[in-house]
């Protein structure tokens, strides 16, 4: 059985090997590093969240532009196709070959132009959507 009198010298021999100044410097340095990292990482997370909000807003805005443009394009094209086929019937009834050829050419030209092709130029789409006087060639 160890007597308390023997433990004290052991403790003293261990503690006696510790350099208090070095220990203090180490501990203070590590604490400072830890506090600094908490602050830095917190700042980074705030910046990440802010950037995320900006990017999501941009994507939403772009999506709204694309969908509005395409839906408007398809609506206008449907009206145009209806009008062209109505005139085609009239031209056929009248036997007007020249008009028939011209109208069929217009129908195929409109069909060949896909509304999706313009989506590459976002600036163009935005500018045209915002310009009330712009005449859409659909």
């Amino acid at each position: 059985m160890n007597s308390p009198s023997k433990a004290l010298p052991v403790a003293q021999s261990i503690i006696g090997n510790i350099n208090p100044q070095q220990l203090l410097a180490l501990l203070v340095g590590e604490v400072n590093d830890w506090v600094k990292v908490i602050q830095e990482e917190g700042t980074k997370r705030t910046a990440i969240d802010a950037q995320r909000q900006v990017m999501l807003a941009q994507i939403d805005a772009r999506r709204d532009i694309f969908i509005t443009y395409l839906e408007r394009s398809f609506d206008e094209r449907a009206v145009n196709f209806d009008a062209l086929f109505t005139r085609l019937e009239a031209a056929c009834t009248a036997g007007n070959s020249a008009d028939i050829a011209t109208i069929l050419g217009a129908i195929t030209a409109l069909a060949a132009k896909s509304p999706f092709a313009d989506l590459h130029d976002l600036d163009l789409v935005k500018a045209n959507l915002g310009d009330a006087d712009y005449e859409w060639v659909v």
Partner: protein
Amino acid sequence: MPLPLVPVAIVLGLSALGGLVSGGRGAQQALSAKAINKESSLRHESALSDHKAAFSSAEGKVIAYGNFQASVLSATLVAWLTWLEANERKVRMLDHASVEGIYVHEIDLPTLRSNVEAARGIISGGVTALGAGFAAQQLALNGVGIFATASTGTGIAALTGAAQESAVMAWLGGGSLAAGGGGVAVGASMITGLAIAPALLVGGLVLGREGEKSLTRAHAFAAEVDVACAEIAVQISLLELIDQRIKELTEVLNRLDQHAQTCMVTLTALDFSPEHHATEFQAAAIAMKAVSEVLDAPLLNNEHEPSQQSLHIVERYAS
């Protein structure tokens, strides 16, 4: 002189306590990071699954339109081809003739013949080694002009997993994660090289620092997934609008086909004479040309830009 035992013991005790606090916080942050990563990965997988479903739906509609194109080719244009072959000598007499100011252009019989045969192949399911589904898909996307070239494409992959290089994905855009999920580390551990230090302060502080950093990395990953999911949602919306384009072209092709069939009925009822029936021939030829041009219209990209004159005609007749 040995250090006083009690003060040093107090310092070491406080250090151990501080180590527990900082280490505990660090471990908590690391666990939060792990949870955020897992949730983000699941969200991204769900978005990719939704995209895949939307893509499959669009693909099915594209193939259906391609089959419709093939049916028009193999019915209406077959009737035209048959009549032309039966009256080839008489039709040649009309070459460069003018009907009401519109010249009758030479008809490319070999190409028409080839397109019709290819369309019959799609209908019967035996056109290429890749299968009728691929051919119908290509017909819908690129128009009848595809029959003029050998098919050396990637087949069904053009509209499936490798869609990033296809015409559909090219204009849809999207970032690295939105392009198909490549590179996303699913469930990656954000705690690497973390040494579980002893209970003294220094070990706890190391744990604390690593925990903070892992939480930041998790935030960055979650933000990237949010952006990717938003991009995927845009693509899904655009895929759904492809159906609008298909319906538009189907309607136009249907009406032109009916007009062309009417012209064919008129023409075939005649005992054709180039001197007396140039007008009827002209009407049928122009109608068939219109059908061919819409068959050649690409679904998405403009390969053949219409002239400004044609578009102004649209404005005049549609107003």
